[in-house]
């Protein structure tokens, strides 16, 4: 099994005619994802290069195709938060916002509204998620993933690829990998994903990848300590980052005493998490946790 997305996930692509949207539609199709529709206002009743039907609104796309998930590539200047709300109102189960650069004010409002309903929003500014062999809703290179017992949740994109690559080479496949994104206000945080892995019978261990900034890792550590029975292996990037400097991600900044790597590592260790010093150590720690 997997979490959030599987073979039956029917995906609509919002912003399908843009450069990123069209490229990744091709990549996702190649991976085997069921892309059933695209949405670009003004381009309804046409088809994209892969023959995918394009609609003017998400509502129409859902009515015509039975889509239950959406992936959003709509650029920030075209009001990404509005696209998220459109997907939300269309009754989808999973909404993935890949777009980077969405204003915080818009996300505070959008996240508040989405949380009133049933939809699970992932992102924005994230690589998306993948259930290897079943469905890819994201921009990650599909070939490095392989099915297996490890669940993964991460704030970073390429660092996730690095770690997944090491896991796969070590013979450790994945149930689902979720990239939650590097922005301060995101639809899904660690503590939204961890219970799903805890409940998923096929996930036997979880790899948790955090970074400096905020206190989401500490909050997750509390959850792991009190609620999780499955083993967790953790990694925190930015261990040597200086305070006050924003390291690429809007959320990755140590300000004052919050967001320091040491506090995060300490919280994870106290929760019984095996914390890896380098990405290279992660497969060994996972094997140990699985008794392999």
């Amino acid at each position, binding site marked *: 099994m997997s979490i959030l997305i599987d073979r039956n996930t029917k995906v609509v692509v919002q912003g399908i005619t843009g450069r990123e949207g069209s490229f990744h539609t091709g990549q996702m199709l190649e991976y085997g994802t069921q892309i059933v529709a695209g949405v670009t206002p003004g381009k309804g009743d046409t088809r994209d290069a892969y023959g995918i039907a394009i609609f003017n609104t998400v509502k129409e796309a859902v009515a015509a195709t039975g889509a239950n998930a959406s992936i959003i590539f709509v650029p920030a200047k075209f009001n990404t938060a509005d696209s998220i709300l459109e997907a939300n109102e269309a009754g989808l189960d999973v909404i993935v916002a890949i777009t980077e650069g969405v*204003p915080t004010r818009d996300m505070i409002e959008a996240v508040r509204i989405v949380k009133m309903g049933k939809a699970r929003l992932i992102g924005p500014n994230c690589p998306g998620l993948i259930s290897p062999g079943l469905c890819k809703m994201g921009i990650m290179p599909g070939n490095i993933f392989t099915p297996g017992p490890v669940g993964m949740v991460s704030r970073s994109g390429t660092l996730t690829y690095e770690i997944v*690559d090491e896991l796969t080479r070590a013979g450790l496949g994945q149930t689902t990998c979720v990239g939650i994104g590097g922005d301060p206000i995101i639809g899904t945080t660690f503590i939204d994903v961890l219970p799903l892995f805890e409940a998923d019978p096929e996930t036997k261990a979880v790899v948790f990848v955090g970074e400096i900034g905020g206190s989401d890792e500490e909050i997750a550590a509390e959850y792991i300590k009190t609620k999780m029975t499955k083993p967790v292996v953790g990694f925190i990037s930015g261990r040597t980052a200086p305070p006050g400097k924003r390291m690429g991600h809007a959320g*990755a900044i140590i300000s004052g005493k919050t967001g320091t790597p040491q506090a995060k590592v300490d919280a994870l260790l106290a929760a019984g998490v095996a914390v890896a010093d380098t990405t290279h150590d992660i497969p060994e720690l996972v094997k140990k946790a699985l008794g392999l």
Partner: protein
Amino acid sequence: MKLHEYQGKELLAKYGVEIPGNAGIAETPEQARDAVARLGGKGVLKAQAHTGGRGKAGGIKVAGSPEEAETLARQMIGMILKTHQVPQGLRVEKLLIEEPITIEKEFYIGVVPDRATQRNVLIVSAMGGMDIEAVAEEHPEAIAKLPVDPLIGVRDYQLRQVCYEANLPDHLILQAAAFLRKLYTAYMEADASLAEINPLAVTKDGRLLAADAKFSIDDNALFRHPEFAAFKEESEEDPIEAEAHRRGLAYVRLGGYIGVIGNGAGLVMATIDEVARAGGKAANFLDIGGGAKADVVHNALELVLSDPNVKGVMFNIFGGITRGDEVAKGIIEGTRTLDIRVPMVVRLAGTNAAEGAALLEKTSLIPAETMAEAAEKIVALTK
């Protein structure tokens, strides 16, 4: 983007917030003298630099006459202001010249987005005029918070309530609540990511004044705020960081001697950690982003090499959207056109890594299989 005090006060004034009278900005001692003369012969000279703790560091001075203002300004303009927040110091280029005010009491009010509640939070404290983080640490009970539901907004009773909870004096509650509303409105409409008035001054005659103003604007929202374009000043930034900004590269100078270039913020951070583990010190953080083409790589390399402390460069690329052969082309192009006298270690993985490695074979670049191996190699080569 951080605003200077004078810019923040300009913004607040538009929302009806009371600020001390001022005679504008002085960039020369003569301007400071004339400004103080316009204020009637007495004035406060305030260094405009993006840091707290300016007073203690000598960045705020009181002049009793226009002549004294000129003398003080001569010392202050061009000084490197070193504070506890920015120990390496910031160069002062502008002074805000304000009317002196007599402060009876100092409060703190601010607004920030809170990740945990996913809301904007208003913060009020009767302990103003000092570092709010220190107050939060030592007197957490002296800080009152109001998380704002974005769909409901702020209600007057909530504003009164948070002021009462902060133990502001009874007779100032209504005034403070009105002040908070103006601050919150300015924060929201400006797409700010921080708004702080510290101190919020109570004058002898019982008025509330924004004695200082600290604003940051959400960089992601700048595209819809052309009015802030004029506020952008690069002079205070590190010159290489300023150049990176112009080139649209995510670069942070870190002070070490190993240049680091990679794709993806998390991966670059982990690479810097790996360099430290191997016994080295990174000169910079540089994320070339997703899908970076050869010209971007060339541009990034040129920037990193412009730091005279750089004794070697490490590339760490995990291809997803970014293709290994494109990155290799950029590096090769860079070695042809730039004067490179330092060793460079290149680690390519993921999409088209093999094609990239083949291109690099005939060059002097040193290949590495893994991130750890690359870090060890570059550290050994720069010892």
